[in-house]
């Protein structure tokens, strides 16, 4: 009950956070602006042929999805760092921690509160994907379960990482570090092709940093006209378990550091 109370309170606080509302509004405007090329692709369907049009729509949906998921990662990092840091900065944590609440319970409540907000974001993202493909005159063939589970696990990884970082550093520094981790992890993934890093460093970073490429739902985006090969159930299980395991390790480390942190 305590963890649930903290989670719901965190969620209520986040959805009222002016910085988050402002950035979401700005981002929504950018996405709406990006709908224009999609409408153009639809209007060109007759002249370029149905197959080519479907590929164009898929490419655009994929690009918008990539942007939206990237923004989601930043949102997860910022919301998690701010959810913990703002309580400490404002002093509201004192009244909460004066209750029979363990420090790890407080952190878990914060983490779950952020996940509640991210769940809404993911559902909105899914609806946006359907809307984009519909506007492009196509139909999304990917399983909605995959399009929900993968980003949720990826955001859980970034949330746990941000909570770990914010227990030892300023929230802005934690956000920047989280952002750097997100960029580096995409640079060192095998799918990134040529890398600026030497092989040994690239391998080390790939092992150490979260493999967000593996947790990307983008590879499952498919239109009915050109379905991608279906991945076996075990592939999903391994990828999602890997993500949850990474998040768990980050969270346990955060709880270990936070247990002796002055409030």
């Amino acid at each position, binding site marked *: 009950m305590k963890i649930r109370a903290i989670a719901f309170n965190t969620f*209520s606080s986040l959805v009222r956070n002016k910085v988050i509302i402002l950035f979401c509004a700005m981002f929504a405007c950018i996405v709406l602006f990006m709908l224009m090329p999609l409408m153009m692709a639809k209007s060109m369907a007759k002249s370029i042929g149905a197959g080519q049009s479907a590929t164009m729509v898929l490419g655009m949906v994929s690009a918008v999805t990539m942007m939206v998921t990237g923004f989601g990662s930043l949102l997860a990092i910022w919301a998690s760092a701010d959810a913990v840091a703002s309580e400490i900065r404002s002093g509201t944590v*004192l009244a909460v*921690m*004066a*209750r029979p609440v363990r420090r790890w319970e407080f952190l878990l409540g914060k983490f779950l509160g952020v996940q509640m907000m991210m769940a809404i974001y993911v559902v909105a993202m899914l609806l946006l994907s359907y809307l984009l493909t519909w506007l492009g005159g196509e139909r999304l063939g990917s399983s909605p379960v995959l399009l929900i589970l993968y980003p949720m696990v990826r955001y859980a990884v970034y949330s746990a990482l941000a909570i770990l970082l914010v227990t030892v550093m300023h929230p802005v520094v934690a956000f920047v570090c989280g952002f750097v981790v997100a960029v580096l992890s995409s640079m060192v993934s095998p799918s990134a092709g040529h890398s600026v890093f030497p092989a040994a460093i690239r391998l080390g970073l790939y092992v150490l940093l979260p493999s967000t490429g593996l947790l990307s739902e983008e590879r499952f985006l498919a239109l009915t006209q050109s379905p991608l090969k279906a991945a076996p159930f075990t592939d999903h299980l391994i990828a999602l378990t890997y993500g949850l395991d990474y998040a768990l390790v980050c969270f346990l480390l955060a709880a270990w550091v936070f247990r002796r942190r002055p409030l």
Partner: protein
Amino acid sequence: MSTPAIEFLEVTKVFHPRFSEEYVAALTGVSFEVVPGEVCAFLGPNGAGKTTSISILMGFLFPDSGTVRVLGHPPGDVRAKAQIGFVPENFAYYKFLTGPQLLRFHMRLAGLDLASAETRIGELLAAVRLHGYESLKIGKYSRGMVQRLGIAQALLADPQLLVLDEPTSGLDPAGRHEVLDLITSLRDRGKTVFLSSHILPEVEHICDRVVILDRGRLLRVGFLRELLRSGDQVEIVIDRVPDETSAALAEFGAIATPVEQRVRIVADASRKRELAELLWAAGCDVVSINPLKSSLEDLFLKTVGGAS
């Protein structure tokens, strides 16, 4: 002998500011005890280490050395926290919640039964004069209202120990009076109250024990009654001072001050009998002889001033 409600044993806390070679000794070997059922005033000038001590007591900070026990448990232990009500010095609450919503949130954190929540919340809001403001967001509260809500949340779980850091700051005289009455009623119900305050005349009327700190060091600890009686002067009230006794009074080192229709003489307690006999022999009517009781403010200033 019962377990002390609060026990500090040789507690030391040093702060090391980041990027600095200097350090600040917030507490140095502080030891004291608070017995269950008493009201203990925790006094000291700004920077004395009161808030650091309270933060250690609540498990927000950790001492560098020494031992702290709260209700027989280490600070921060959930078994102890379940029996503590706490009002922080500069407390902040979620501004988007209303008073009843905040109390409901704290009831959940305390693991209390929500079935009787509305009755309990109604009682508490009435006790701190916040009824009628149920739908108002905390962000719109005045400082005094926030302070009263803080006291309500501290009383929510009917705690055995109340830790109040400046509970009357921000309150109007009526509000302060109500809080002091509340503290007295809690003591009458066997609760332990540990409060820090700067308003000494108010604290004097309600506290049993006093702990005085200055610059992280414990200067004085003891029962207020005993500390205030520890003066070595006596107050003799007479109807008049005959002219022939003025020289004798000066010889005794006594100071005579007219008070309304009478004269108040303050003299050394060791010579009270001689002085009283002299006055009696001079035909004065000796109305009363009492040990001179200093105020808590006098004691505080003397203790802190003497130390510095």
